[in-house]
């Protein structure tokens, strides 16, 4: 039985369990290589979220990206703790310590809920939303001239009629919005530009004084968001396999047991085994290991 926790999203509360090593393995596999396919990553990540949360796959797919990352931040904090260790760029191999609560602090300071408050323009009440991650993938692929404003509209109410776009397909939403008077669309586009500008200003490291020279953007660029997922969960699949092998070979764990461990349990076992092996190494000077154990240290996740 894994520990269950609660996460507050913009419109509801949901429950989720801690991650397990088998899910971390899936996430790492999706993050392999230079050119990560966002659709494959999201598909795998969403399947993991479905398994550990009370959300259905459809609900996960329709989470706006802020809610999605709020959930990821919470899962990360519950599963591995609020402190993560990350390498922020390729040139500099130093690992820095980051408190995930500082990310949430920065995001909250931008008062996104106020930014997205409904507006009345020309007697039409417009409800805004943030795009889903799938839609951010589409936004990232579009030309500058393509229309994207439909990703930011949740519903409109005019006179006594409510049109909720979550019940319409993307092309239907576009069709409906194109029938609106230009003045209204122009107003919506201006508002969306403000939303874009606000998110482009966000640097998740802004509240960490010793990292203020570095940047972790949190905007509508899918590559930036993939980098953030890497920072949150790590991506070293090889070390993970080596550690599982060492724990099974030297610690007498079964692979199934390790795969069902939480990341916290896994780190504890790795550290423990590391410390035991270090002690043995100092008493037995002839001890040598060629079984991947040299790679193990305690800061794997």
């Amino acid at each position, binding site marked *: 039985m894994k520990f269950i926790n609660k996460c507050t999203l913009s419109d509801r509360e949901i429950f989720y369990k801690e991650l397990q090593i088998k899910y971390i393995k899936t996430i790492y596999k999706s993050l392999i290589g230079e050119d990560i396919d966002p659709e494959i990553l999201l598909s795998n990540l969403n399947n993991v979220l479905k398994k550990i949360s009370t959300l259905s796959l459809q609900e996960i797919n329709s989470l706006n990206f802020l809610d999605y990352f709020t959930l990821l931040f919470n899962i990360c904090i519950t599963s591995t703790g609020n402190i993560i260790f990350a390498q922020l760029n390729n040139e500099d191999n130093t690992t820095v310590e980051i408190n995930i609560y500082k990310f949430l602090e920065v995001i909250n300071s931008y008062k996104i809920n106020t930014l997205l408050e409904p507006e009345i323009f*020309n*007697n*039409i009440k417009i409800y805004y939303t943030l795009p889903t991650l799938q839609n951010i993938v589409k936004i990232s692929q579009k030309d500058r001239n393509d229309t994207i404003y439909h990703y930011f509209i949740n519903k409109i109410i*005019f*006179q*006594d*009629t*409510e*049109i*909720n776009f979550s*019940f*319409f*397909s993307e092309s*239907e939403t576009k*069709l*409906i*919005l*194109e*029938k*609106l*008077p*230009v*003045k*209204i*669309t*122009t107003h919506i586009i201006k508002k969306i530009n403000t939303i874009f500008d606000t998110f482009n200003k966000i640097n998740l490291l802004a509240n960490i004084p010793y990292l203020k020279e570095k940047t972790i953007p949190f905007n509508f660029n899918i590559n930036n968001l993939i980098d953030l997922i890497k920072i949150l969960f790590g991506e070293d699949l090889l070390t993970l396999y080596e550690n599982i092998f060492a724990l099974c070979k030297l610690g007498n764990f079964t692979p199934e047991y390790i795969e069902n461990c939480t990341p916290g349990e896994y780190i504890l076992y790795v550290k423990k085994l590391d410390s035991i092996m270090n002690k043995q190494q100092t008493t037995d000077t002839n001890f040598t290991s060629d079984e991947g154990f040299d790679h193990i240290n305690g800061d794997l996740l």
Partner: protein
Amino acid sequence: MLLLNNLMSLETNNQLKNVLTLIENLDSSTNFNVYIPSLQKEFKFKQLTTEQLKRLLKTIIDSPIYSTEFILTFNSIIRENCLAQDLDTGVLTVLDKHIILFKMRIESISPEYTFEIDDQNKITVSLTKKLSELLNKQIKFDCETFSNDDYSVTCNLPSLNIENKFEEDLHQNTTFNINSSKDLRDIIGETFVNEVTKFITTLTIKNTPIDLTAYDFKSRVKIIEKLPISLINNVIKYIEKYRALVQLLFTFELTMKDGSVLQQEITQDSSFFNT
């Protein structure tokens, strides 16, 4: 009026049609009146929709000499956005069209227009003021008949139906191959005769009236080309009088930062609607 009085949620795909109809009738707050000179009366129109603006902006890729695509697109938008059910917009004149175009820009995009002369001179003018100035002149443009020996021609402002037919018959799908100054002269000459033809509705030869509207434009051009030049000159003066009136609406006197005054005309094409 299709708007519903009770709160209702339109939440299923098969209601798309209903939603589109509802939005098309979302008129009370965005409608506007336009004074139509030919009918001496105001009529209600809807603002441009985003889809219509996109259609207009696409006409930027138009013929380099004629504005056929823009003319046909805007004329169809007039038909779509006119809320007077008993009005056939095809009978409106080209002068009416310019007034609608101007008012549509004011209501749908902005009542102001900015001329960007250079980095120093970006001058914003009021389109509303300009339109009021013109309409205060109580403009009315009647048909006129000119006679010469055995011929007489009646000129009138072309209706939108005639303009559409003219553009479709003569200009649409026309490609240009201008390789020399002779080619250019030929095209200008052709354009000139075409324009004259558009304004002549009836021709009388030795007391026998010929209703030119019964002919297609290619035939009408051939007939007009045979008329005496003195008669054509009168038609040209009629056209110039109309053009001067339109110019009054679209031309602005701009005072530059150095105090000099510059006359600038707004181009009547899709760029007028470019936000």
